């Protein structure tokens, strides 16, 4: 009973934030919601399948650039079309990339995903005529629900309709992922995470299910990437850079990968912690490095592990 009550309170709070909170903090909620979508997908791969991707920024980049190309060059401004297009583009890329990567596990999987991420980053950086190089390209304000929202300033648009649209996407993505992890498919992923050899012996095709999980996580990342691009109004290659991949893995660890809502909490904490630390201390990565070390050593369950009464402790391999 506790979870529905907490979720209801959080839902009410989220609905009230644009009305009650200063605009600045409302705009900080936008990347949180975008990353929330990304992390739900990433954690399907990480927390539920046992594969750590260090190249998922590749799919954030694909989503963001899909949005930019559609709005800037192809005149497609409806976000209801942009998000499915971003998902489709990510699926097309993830199909062959995933098929190759899931043949490997542990550090080899991580390095392969990192390599593909860097290939895409370099493509974005060097193919200037196509991608705008290091300057990137513009992401025009998308239409929401068929409306251009012309009467709204950029800030009013972002903290009003766009906020609520992003919230709706996050809620939908959360509900879908909730179903996925509680489905027979989700159970098969957990068997693979826990013991691939045993999973195979029970007839679970480990590479195939890993590939499915990879595809779903890529689609989530691309949708999150498309959402992420609108507030900044510009996309550039750093979206696909490996440090961005590292950041989202950090967010998952910060929130706790063993919990369904942990990554969402991690995204929230990361965004607001980053903003706070950056405003008082220029070397914010120094602080974040210390936080990461603390989490791995003392709180492997992440923030959820600290706050929630856990069903079971997280074991961190020291090997």
């Amino acid at each position: 009973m506790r979870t529905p009550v907490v979720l209801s309170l959080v839902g009410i709070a989220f609905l009230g934030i644009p009305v009650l909170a200063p605009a600045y903090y409302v705009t900080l909620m936008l990347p949180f919601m975008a990353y929330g979508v990304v992390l739900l997908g990433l954690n399907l791969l990480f927390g539920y399948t046992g594969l750590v991707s260090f190249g998922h920024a590749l799919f954030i980049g694909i989503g963001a650039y899909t949005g930019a190309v559609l709005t800037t060059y192809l005149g497609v401004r409806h976000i209801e079309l942009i998000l499915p297009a971003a998902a489709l583009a990510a699926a097309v890329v993830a199909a062959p990339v995933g098929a190759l990567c899931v043949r490997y596990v542990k550090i080899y999987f991580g390095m392969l995903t990192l390599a593909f991420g860097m290939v895409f980053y370099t493509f974005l950086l060097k193919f200037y005529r196509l991608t705008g190089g290091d300057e990137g390209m513009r992401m025009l304000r998308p239409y929401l629900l068929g409306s251009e929202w012309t009467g709204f300033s950029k800030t009013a648009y972002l903290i009003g309709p766009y906020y609520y649209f992003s919230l709706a996407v996050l809620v939908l993505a959360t509900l879908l992922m909730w179903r996925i992890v509680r489905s027979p498919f989700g159970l098969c992923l957990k068997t693979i995470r826990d013991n691939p050899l045993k999973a195979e012996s029970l007839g679970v095709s480990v590479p195939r299910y890993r590939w499915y999980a990879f595809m779903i996580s890529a689609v989530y990342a691309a949708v999150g990437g498309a959402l992420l691009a609108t507030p900044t109004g510009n996309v550039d290659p750093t979206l696909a850079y490996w440090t961005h991949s590292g950041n989202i893995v950090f967010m998952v660890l910060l929130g706790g990968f063993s919990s369904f809502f942990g990554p969402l909490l991690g995204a929230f904490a990361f965004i607001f912690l980053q903003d706070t630390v950056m405003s008082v201390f220029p070397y914010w990565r120094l602080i974040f490095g210390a936080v990461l070390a603390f989490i791995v050593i003392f709180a492997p369950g992440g923030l959820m592990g600290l706050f929630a009464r856990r069903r079971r402790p997280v074991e961190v391999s020291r090997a």
Partner: protein
Amino acid sequence: MILEALDIRKLYGAYVALDGVSLSIREGEFVSIIGPNGAGKTTLINVLTGVLQPSAGSVRFKGKDIGGIGTVALTRLGMARSFQLVQIFPELTVLETLQAAVVSRLGRGAKLFASLAADGQVQADALEVAALFGLSDKAHALARELPQGDKKLLDVASAFALRPEIILLDEPTSGVSTADKHAIMEILVGAAKRIGLRAIIQVEHDMDIVFGYSDRIIALHQGKVLADATPAEIEADARVVDIVVGRRHSTGSERPSPYPLPEGERDNQDPSPPMGERVG
């Protein structure tokens, strides 16, 4: 003949793990494979279960060549296995473990948005297997928190939840206290009868278990079949006793096989060939 291996050779580089092994498993049999360490027992199990491709020879299951076809495909054909070292899903409960096997058997693993909790058939089948193996009261316990004997049972139970036609058990009582061994075997053969298993093959070191439950024993030595005979014939063979069996309990302590052949079949079995010559 449900499973047949013909002149299997398996090489690891220059090392010959299996050297011309032939065997056949008939309907209703409980067959034990025994042998000293390094005899090739686990390699043979891996070849029979399609994990390893034999270097030469063939393995036929229900008349189909299954050499190296892989575990997943073989599972779908109706063969299951358990492992020498206990294989569980540490973070899953007993019930979830059994549900995973049932989901796999029913081919529902790719259902993305279906509710597992609302799938009555999966729940019922998993609970039935839990009851068969005496794990009902631990259904919601995490697998990693179970006592060792229960972990072993869960490992085997999950293989049974696939409702296979034949099961290969690699040391089903290894790592289990002596007191628990017979209890596990009784549960296992009882479950086998209940689900209509067509044959059981086990690799086992414990000779009480081997002689107490087997219809036939295949003794391996240095990658070759040393003997393929009934427990009584094996026990009477000084060479096999010397190489493989060692000192053992008296014949009087043997239990009747709780997994007998169907009526009329036992008497019709072909007499086993002289020990040491049986190569199929």
